[in-house]
């Protein structure tokens, strides 16, 4: 295989004669003498990144975060994070004369009076939703392709922390306008905190600076939302990127791609244009949505007051799952020595912690099972790892059931169902559905493997059948090229281990769970045999057709 060294293209001299180029050279020299820019350019500019649509979700997350920073900065110029009460006297007639907090009043001002204010508010909220979608999809791309394997386990954890921080950023953000919806969200937080044994009521009073709602919570959330959380997110994004460059990006298996190389395009100029351009595309699409689609119309909900609430109170989508468990759990609470243990909160907390913990630790669990300590830079195709893929789908199913359960009132109304029946369906579903999802996904993966195996051995079916003089039917197969076949035969095979000789009984069971059901990969010997057989068949077919595989109809038409 030939290796193109990226930095050795010949330079074009007409470029160097232009005035702009000469000016740039002077600037570059100035910079290089001060910050060693040359070394940086040499290091980064011709780095190769592989190209694939599924690698763009992480980019979407990064870019929507930049849009969050831009739009958020605009909003801080006008938002007043104070819970001091004022009388609303703005242009929105339905609320004129109402007692509202300054936070609410300034959010109204941004929405109704500040030029471009509503646009930037909607962009901020929409990009927060896109940010979280992108993080989740990116995370599961990494999960399903095994891109979390050595050496990238730590970067997986960094990404996981970013996901959790994203939720924190979202929650603290949508609590700021101090409307009925956000206020009730905070009230739920207050209730959750109080459920913690011993320290609960202390936590709540410290967090709210007194009894709920108090006058402290919005200024505090504001500081968390615009300083603490974004600073942590920025720092972790920095680490995420540095590790990405250090490890070099993973690539999908393909001809010419190995564990020891990376095939793709250079940062400069291709990715400067593609990725830089993609930022503007994401920016443009979020702006378009915000220009045309209303989000969080808090003036409809009205200012927060502890008394009203409306049906259909849902948090933003990425927080739904945390509400679902609270709706599904039965009213289990018991008293011991006169003290309350609120299992109806503690069990959902434990479930949420378990779900997040499983996701965070999965790379280490799988590495323990396989014992594989090599570096992996070629991604797995999800169907080649049926159990991992099944576990991922089962995780998503639990997550979705929790999220759906958090919208059970809306579903019940839309489908004219009893909310009690629906809740019971979800209560049962959360135990049954993930098991089913795991099993079905695993079987599907194995079926796909079987189909790919046949494809690799026999080539594509052409739906053209030849009948021999003896009456035998033979289908004409179009053999794959070596390049096409490579993707189907390159993957690794894992086998379960027997206990003993340094393998614990538990690990033996785990390997059996992971690798008991497996499809034998194609071996070179099998392929040789298949090709021989195909050659034999081709001889018969060519003898009958004269090498012309067109149907009689096609021969007439063409």
């Amino acid at each position, binding site marked *: 295989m030939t290796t193109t060294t990226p930095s050795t293209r010949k330079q074009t001299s007409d470029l160097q004669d232009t005035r702009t180029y000469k000016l740039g050279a002077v600037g570059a020299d100035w910079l290089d003498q001060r910050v060693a820019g040359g070394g940086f350019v040499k290091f980064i500019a011709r780095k190769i990144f592989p190209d694939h649509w599924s690698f763009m979700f992480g980019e979407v997350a990064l870019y929507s975060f930049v849009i969050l920073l831009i739009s958020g900065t605009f909003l801080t110029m006008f938002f007043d994070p104070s819970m001091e009460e004022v009388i609303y006297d703005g242009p929105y007639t339905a609320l004129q004369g109402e007692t509202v907090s300054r936070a609410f009043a300034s959010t109204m001002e941004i929405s109704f*009076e500040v030029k471009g204010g509503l646009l930037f508010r909607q962009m901020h909220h929409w990009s927060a939703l896109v940010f979280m979608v992108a993080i989740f999809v990116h995370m599961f791309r990494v999960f399903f392709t095994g891109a979390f394997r050595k050496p990238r386990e730590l970067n997986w954890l960094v990404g996981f922390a970013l996901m959790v921080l994203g939720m924190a950023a979202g929650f603290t953000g949508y609590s700021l306008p101090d409307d009925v919806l956000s206020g009730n969200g905070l009230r739920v937080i207050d209730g959750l905190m109080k459920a913690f044994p011993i320290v609960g009521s202390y936590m709540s009073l410290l967090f709210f600076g007194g009894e709920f709602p108090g006058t402290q919570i919005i200024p505090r959330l504001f500081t968390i939302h615009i300083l603490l959380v974004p600073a942590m997110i920025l720092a972790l994004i920095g680490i995420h990127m540095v590790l990405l460059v250090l490890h070099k990006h993973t690539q999908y298996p393909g001809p010419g791609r190995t564990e020891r190389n990376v095939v793709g395009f250079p940062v400069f100029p291709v990715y400067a244009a593609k990725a830089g351009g993609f930022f503007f595309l994401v920016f443009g699409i979020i702006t378009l949505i915000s220009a045309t689609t209303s989000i969080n119309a808090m003036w409809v909900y009205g200012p927060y007051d502890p008394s009203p609430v409306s049906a259909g109170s849902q948090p933003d989508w990425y927080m739904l799952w945390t509400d679902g468990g609270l709706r599904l759990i039965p009213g289990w609470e018991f008293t011991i020595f006169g003290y309350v243990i609120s299992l109806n909160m503690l069990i959902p907390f434990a479930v949420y912690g378990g779900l997040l913990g499983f996701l965070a630790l999965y790379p280490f669990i799988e590495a323990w099972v396989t014992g594989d300590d090599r570096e992996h830079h070629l991604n797995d195709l999800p169907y080649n790892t049926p159990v991992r893929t099944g576990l991922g789908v089962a995780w998503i199913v639990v997550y979705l059931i929790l999220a759906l359960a958090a919208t059970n009132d809306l579903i019940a109304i839309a489908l004219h169902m009893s909310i009690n029946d629906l809740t019971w369906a979800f209560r049962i579903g959360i135990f049954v559905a993930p098991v089913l999802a795991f099993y079905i996904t695993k079987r599907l993966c194995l079926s796909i493997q079987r189909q790919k195996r046949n494809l690799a051995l026999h080539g594509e079916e052409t739906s053209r059948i030849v009948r021999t003089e003896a009456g035998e039917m033979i289908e004409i197969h179009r053999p794959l090229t070596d390049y096409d076949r490579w993707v189907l035969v390159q993957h690794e095979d894992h086998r379960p281990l027997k206990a003993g000789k340094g393998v614990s009984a538990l690990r033996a069971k785990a390997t059996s769970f992971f690798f008991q059901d497996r499809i034998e990969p194609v071996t070179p010997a099998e392929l040789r045999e298949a090709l021989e057989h195909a050659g034999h068949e081709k001889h018969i077919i060519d003898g009958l057709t004269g090498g012309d595989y067109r149907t009689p109809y096609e021969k007439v038409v063409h």
Partner: protein
Amino acid sequence: MSNNHDGSTAARGVTTVAPKEGGGFPNPGLPPHVHRQADLHKSAEKRAERVVAGMFLLSVIGTIVFIAAYFLVTPTGRNIFAEEGTPSALWWSNLITGLGLAVAVFFIGAAAVHWAKTLMPDEEMVEERHDIRSSEETREVAVGIINDGLEESGITRRPVIVTAMVAALAALPIAVLAPLSTLGPLPGNKLHHTFWGHNPGQRLARDHDGTPIKLSDVAMNSIFHVMPEGLTHDTPHRMEERAKAAAVIVRIDPKLAKNEESMAMGVEGVLAFSKICTHVGCPVALYEQQTHHMLCPCHQSTFDVTDGAKVIFGPAHRPLPQLPIEVDDEGYLVAPGDFTEPIGPSFWNIHKDK
């Protein structure tokens, strides 16, 4: 059972990786490059160039629209599409400003991506990877540096310092508790009492306008959202008091009553309950007149008001605390004291008297 790529055996013993039978297949290498239209035809290249330039220019138009909209299509002032200050003016302002900005940024992106995809080289390049781990020499040097540093610091020879340092570093984080504790007051008995208990004998007033309610006002099967009459705009900590004092009164047919103790705390079938859910504290705002169930819209805890507001479905455990009521000389409903137990979500010592 398996070897690493460099031929060494796996460091951690047995792996599940199966050896490739027959050594596996040879990697066929990069497939031949397929040229694009713009690589083959001058006209296609020219066309791509025009498209890229055209999209950049479209972005300029978007920028102009965005800036113009800021002055010509404003929400409260000048607006060329709608009457000043109307909701429609806001709608137009948001739309035109937004579309301008969307075009301005989107087409910079579209142009750059099209440029890269059609005109920049698309022949794949190959870069070699290197082990992430440092070389043996580097490791040796690093270990040497660390050992020397440890030796120079004398950390191994001075256990007293180390012990004292560990003590200092362990003690310091405890200091965080001090500023943390000043974030808010201690709960004390605050969560155990409400405005009703602090000011006994309050009339029950309608939540929306503060007017008191007569027994005769309460029709059968109706519901009123109530607050203490004395809890007004001028009450200190108004919101916190409202958050605890919120209540509802319902009137049920005494024949339906399943709970005598609860009925005894009402007047002629008029019963008052806390409106704050005992699950996580949402207002229990929905009342089903037919079944006499109260439903929390947040998590669907359902309370039966004919049976002392006991939980019949959902995540809440405790019944809604009842507010005993009486009728005063003028026929108004009054609350002689507080709820029967602390309102709202359960907490650790909710059942302890304070």
